[in-house]
């Protein structure tokens, strides 16, 4: 290499580089002023949008708190419905009814939902038409309006083939079918997130499919599955429409039983109270809404905490 031939090339490269830099800078700088304005406008639009959503949430909570404030006492939780004296009426039977119904829902969706999710992710051959049909089916069911499940419950569970009458178990079954797709979809996401290396490693060491699932996949997918169950339960707690059709009776002053006639749940009772003319019932309904909101907040916090606590990074 001769010293003389590199010198002009380096100079040429240096010239080219500085020329490019100048051009880029010119291109960047020329729009930076306009950029700033657009950026500010955009950010404010987004913050307004977010603000509106949060404002809606906050104003609902505040409004209900003000409306229902006068009745926020312990009697709200321990009192029974009363038409004679709404000032001392409470939601005890509705809360117990909700607990029974939701208890039944959980008993149903955990095995069925997790089972279906495991099958679809681990066992199902997705080229077979019946497996594809099941997948499609579940995704469709997730979007069916809740009132249609009410019709289903009335026709098939309360009357029809299953025929258990207007009992809490019917409410459980109806709601379980409603939220099952949510659990299955969440479970599938959770199981899918477990790295294949874990599964493969287990199988390579001689474990059977089920042993692998039980010992490796499920524990790893547990937080996601739990979150799905909690969100499904939170949704089921707030549902009123399907239960209106399967007989969540208004006026129940005794504690409900699973297979005995006569139960009510919190959202249904709130709805019925809100339809009454007397002012005290309106306050009672608003107070009931606050109880529900507290419940929802608790469940959501539980879900978030679970997610944070158990989140594993692969």
């Amino acid at each position: 290499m001769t010293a003389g031939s590199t010198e002009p090339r380096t100079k040429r490269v240096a010239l080219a580089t500085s020329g490019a830099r100048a051009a880029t800078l010119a291109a960047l700088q020329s729009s930076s002023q306009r950029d700033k304005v657009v950026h500010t406008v955009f950010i404010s639009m987004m913050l307004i949008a977010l603000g509106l959503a949060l404002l809606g949430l906050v104003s609902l909570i505040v409004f209900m708190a003000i409306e229902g404030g006068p009745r926020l006492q312990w009697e709200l939780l321990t009192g029974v419905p009363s038409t004679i004296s709404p000032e001392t009426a409470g939601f005890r039977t509705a809360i117990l009814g909700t607990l029974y119904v939701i208890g039944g829902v959980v008993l149903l969706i955990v095995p069925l939902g997790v089972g279906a999710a495991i099958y679809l992710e681990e066992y199902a051959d997705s080229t077979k038409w019946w497996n594809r049909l099941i997948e499609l089916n579940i995704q469709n069911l997730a979007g069916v309006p809740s009132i249609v499940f009410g019709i289903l419950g009335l026709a098939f569970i309360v009357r029809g083939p299953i025929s258990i009458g207007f009992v809490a178990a019917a409410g459980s079954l109806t709601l379980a079918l409603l939220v099952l797709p949510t659990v299955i979809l969440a479970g599938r996401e959770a199981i899918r997130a477990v790295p294949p290396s874990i599964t493969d490693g287990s199988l390579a060491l001689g474990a059977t499919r089920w042993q692998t699932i039980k010992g490796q996949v499920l524990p790893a997918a547990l937080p996601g599955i739990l979150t799905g169950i909690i969100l499904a339960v939170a949704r089921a707690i707030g549902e009123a429409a399907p239960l209106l059709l399967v007989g969540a009776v208004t006026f129940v002053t005794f504690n409900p039983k699973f297979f005995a006639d006569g139960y009510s749940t919190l959202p249904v009772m709130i709805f019925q109270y809100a339809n009454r003319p007397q002012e005290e019932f309106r306050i009672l309904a608003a107070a009931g809404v606050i109880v529900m909101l507290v419940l929802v907040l608790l469940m959501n916090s539980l879900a978030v905490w679970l997610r944070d606590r158990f989140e594993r990074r692969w």
Partner: protein
Amino acid sequence: MKLRFRGLVALIAALSLVLAACGGDSEETATTGATGSDTTTTEDMGDGDSGGELTGEVRLDGSSTVGPLSEVAAELYMAQQPGVRVTVAISGTGGGFQKFCIGETDANNSSRPISDEEIEICTENGIGFDFIQAANDALSVVVSADLPVECMTVAQVNQIWGAGSTVLTWGDVDGLDLPEDVASQPLTPYGPGSDSGTFDYFTEEINGEVGNIRNDYIDIGEDDLAAVRAIEGDPYATGYIPFSYYQEAGDAVKALAIDDGNGCVEATPENVSNLSYTPLGRGLFVYFSDSALARPEVLDFAEFYIDNAEEIAELAEFVPMTADQIEEQRAKIAALVGG
């Protein structure tokens, strides 16, 4: 460790909530009796086993008008007979009869007499029944207190509300003699939906046929008070609502007197009780099935209902039956108990 601790706390919290709830059971009877003037009524209770040894259940369903009445009866009854579970559902008079006639309920709260079609269904399913009258009720035609109309004939109400009605302003109603500024105002009709017993009764009595009604009225659904609120907001609106809601309504609305051929009869509790407020006065009934009445707790409940009909009607703010009507019902029950 952390998880277990929190889980334990949650478990304890849940358990204590359940325990508190169950503990509330024994206080319940006391609560019902301890509210102000209700104390005397609970103690004044008429016949009906005050021994409290009956057990079983009584399932009522039906009208949303009669429902609150039965709920009061149920509350008072369960204070005396805590072993009996009385439930009151509200599926509407017709929906309730549906369940009643296939044996799903023991009794149906009804704001109208059972229809022929419903009797057929009951017979088909082998359900015999009897009924008691629980209270009197009426429908009031309400307008704004400021409207210069006090009385309407049935024909005028029919003209406003019938199918094919062409009444769009207050001036379109024949024979009202209104000042020009009122006559030119649009008449806005509010009424309950076709699911309501009130709707059935009104259309049949005023327009001659159930379901015969103009198709441009504003449907207020289940919320009878919505008509009152509407009139409070619009002085030229009108609607028809159960009498008990009118009594709750306050001074902004007034009920029109109705002329059924015998002069204007005002909508007052007296006129409803003495049956002069026609044709919009009605009885409220509870139908019991024979198989249910064969059970001691149901019969006892029916007896209790009649014996305490006045107190129940007052507490629920309905128009009570006249003494004669109550005697009639008492005789009916006595026959049932005897036979």
